[in-house]
């Protein structure tokens, strides 16, 4: 009897345990987070606090490194997207609000008091403090470089440089500014005059894909061209070290299971490190490609320790952080062969805290502080020990966002070619499977822009994900959740901001031309996002989908093949389709300039 009762209880327990439990949600939660930008944390000069800009939650957190506690959690305005930050001589913290268009100043590292919020530009990116002038400099994607007194007040200088500015670094009496997609470094003197421009060098790689491509030599080598400069920081000797990407100029043929990786899984995009010498330094040394120290997608952040002898790089695509001695920067670049680079660490093994993608790193002396946005958490590595602190704010999860930033077996992530959810400005050769194609921009109403790809052969995003991520990138099966989530997540990314017009009357004249029956532009480029999504032959060697023109000025080169380096080129005989693509051959150079001014304003 007892046996029967006991057995019955056991069975009942098992049944209850199985049947009454709560099942995981079958549908993914609402969209969360923004594209990873990297470089959103600093440690204060005294080494006591990590200041974390949290663009996913629109807040700034001050974390006490001695007590492992949050001492300030400052809520910002929705969609402010705090990004780069810097501490000034008085201990104030200045933060670029990437989407809020402002420079936010905290009174100090701990009180949580906001001392000011100054409008800068549509998309502030880099920020630097110059102790000699007590100025805070802010670089913008729309090309402005704006200087503010650290203590408050209006801008004292605003320069107009090239678009797509990224980091700004104080260098002697001048400044160094990087550009995101081209990985270019611009050196300015104290008056704001451009002294030099430099770019990391093109290096050679063996073409394991076997497809050949631009620059393929008889030795089987191809060019690896510098692109996307995620982060640049100064070394103690004044040189700049940049964590960026390179595009391998191969032909992208789809070969399963490695897709674009070819027979050996060689990613067409590699993580790279360059050392550049600002133009004001004497003697000026040419830019150098350092040894290929890390492998993986999205080298989003780089940090230098307090002694200046160790560097860390966060690779978001494979969720690792690598440390190595700065002396290894003197080692020459070398082709690390099939499977990419890496293997250069000389300070321990790569760190994988298993907390998702690291998006920001900084040193407190020799302690390495790593920020993981999803839990969210801070992990402090000190030698062989690590302390994890879970921050308030609640879980952040979006399977589409995760997919977008996760590298596949060939070391390629969606964000490799679409950094920050937009595009890398690169022209690819898809060989017989697509020809020459410029990477398309994802920012700005992506869900209203189907079908996708230049020829409109992908009906919707789930179909595109199966094809591009699953097969071409070698990513394997895409889950239902990822298919449901990626579109809504991408749709929240805005189109690039327009450049403030230099001549508003030229813009107005250009708009008139654009909307006139004479040019016929609005026949295809109309509606809220300036496209009918139709597929049209405009004399550019094929039938292509009409692209949206919102933010068009921010994404040279233009046309599907990138044949127009400038918007003016699009109206020249170089490419653009002539009068099959609108009727513009009759326009004077001044009218073309007006039309271009209008397009730049979109």
């Amino acid at each position, binding site marked *: 009897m007892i046996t029967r009762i006991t*057995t019955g209880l056991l069975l009942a327990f098992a049944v209850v345990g199985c049947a009454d*439990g709560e099942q*995981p949600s*079958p549908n*993914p939660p609402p969209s969360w987070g923004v594209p990873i930008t990297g470089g959103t944390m600093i440690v204060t000069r005294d080494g006591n606090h990590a200041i974390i800009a949290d663009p996913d939650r629109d807040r700034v957190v001050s974390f006490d490194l001695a007590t492992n506690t949050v001492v300030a959690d400052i809520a910002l305005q929705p969609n402010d997207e705090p990004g780069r930050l810097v501490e000034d001589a008085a201990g104030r913290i200045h933060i670029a609000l990437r989407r809020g268009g402002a420079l936010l100043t905290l009174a100090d590292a701990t009180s949580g008091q906001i001392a000011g919020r100054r409008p800068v530009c549509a998309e502030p990116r880099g920020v630097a403090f110059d102790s000699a002038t007590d100025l805070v400099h802010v670089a913008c994607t729309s090309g402005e470089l704006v200087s503010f007194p650290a203590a408050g007040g209006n801008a004292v200088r605003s320069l107009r440089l090239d678009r797509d500015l990224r980091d700004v670094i104080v260098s002697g009496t001048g400044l160094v500014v990087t550009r995101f997609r081209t990985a270019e470094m611009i050196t300015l003197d104290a008056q704001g005059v451009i002294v030099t421009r430099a770019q990391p060098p093109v290096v050679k790689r063996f073409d394991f894909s076997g497809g050949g491509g631009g620059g393929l030599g008889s030795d089987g080598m191809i060019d690896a061209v510098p692109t996307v400069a995620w982060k640049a920081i100064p070394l103690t000797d004044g040189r700049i070290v940049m964590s960026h990407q390179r595009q391998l100029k191969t032909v992208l043929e789809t070969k399963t299971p490695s897709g674009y990786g070819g027979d050996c899984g060689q990613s067409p995009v590699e993580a790279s490190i360059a050392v550049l010498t600002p133009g004001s330094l004497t003697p000026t040394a040419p830019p150098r490609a350092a040894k290929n120290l890390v492998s993986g997608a999205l080298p989003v952040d780089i940090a230098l320790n307090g002694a200046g002898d160790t560097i860390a790089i966060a690779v978001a695509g494979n969720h690792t952080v690598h440390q190595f001695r700065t002396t290894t920067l003197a080692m020459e670049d070398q082709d690390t062969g099939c499977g990419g680079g890496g293997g250069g660490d000389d300070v321990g093994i790569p760190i994988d*805290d298993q907390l998702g993608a690291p998006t920001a790193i900084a040193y407190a002396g020799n302690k390495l502080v790593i920020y993981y946005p999803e839990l969210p958490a801070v992990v402090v590595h000190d030698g062989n020990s690590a302390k994890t602190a879970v921050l308030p704010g609640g879980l952040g999860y979006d399977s589409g966002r995760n997919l977008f930033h996760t590298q596949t*077996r060939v070391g390629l992530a969606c964000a490799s070619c679409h950094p920050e959810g937009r595009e890398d400005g690169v022209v690819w050769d898809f060989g017989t499977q697509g020809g020459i194609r410029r990477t398309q921009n994802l920012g700005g109403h992506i869900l209203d822009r189907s079908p996708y790809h230049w020829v409109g052969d992908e009906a919707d995003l789930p179909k595109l994900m199966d094809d591009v991520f699953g097969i071409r990138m070698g990513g394997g*099966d895409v*889950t239902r959740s990822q298919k449901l989530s990626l579109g809504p997540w991408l749709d929240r990314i805005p189109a690039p901001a327009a450049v403030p017009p230099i001549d508003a009357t030229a813009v107005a004249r250009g708009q008139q031309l654009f909307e006139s029956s004479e040019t016929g532009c609005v026949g295809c480029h109309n509606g809220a996002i300036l496209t009918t999504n139709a597929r049209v032959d405009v004399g550019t060697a094929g039938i292509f989908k009409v692209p949206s023109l919102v933010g068009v000025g921010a994404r040279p080169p233009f046309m599907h093949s990138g044949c127009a380096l400038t918007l003016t080129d699009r109206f020249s005989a170089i490419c653009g389709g002539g009068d099959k693509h609108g009727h513009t051959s009759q326009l004077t150079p001044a009218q073309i300039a007006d039309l271009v001014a209008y397009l730049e304003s979109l």
Partner: protein
Amino acid sequence: MQSVKLRRIVPQLALVGLTSVLAAGCLLEAVVPSSGSDCVTTVSKTITIATKPADPPMDLRLQNCRIDVDACTDLCALAMQRANIQGAPTKCSATFDGDLVSLGVSYQVANNNGSCGFADDVQPSNAGGGI
């Protein structure tokens, strides 16, 4: 006589044992017979973990799994890793019940049969990624 005693004691021991391991926060129990080919055996087990583990990586995956069933594979993978089980899950289910989560995992193990050569690695989707 001994048989009668055993019939009384074994179920009680089983109940006590089950309760103990659940209280400890981690239960590893074979619930489905193994199956597979000559070269590969599919093993199915249940791994039980606490819903608030003092293990941030596990906590992250657990929270993800609760709100998105497709995220549970990563939870199962880490739970297997923590339980020193080699390989990747080929099947994964999760049931949240109070302070515990029961993970039903299946995975393949090579039989090391000399005629099989190398066993195929079982790769999860989105290979190369993590969570």
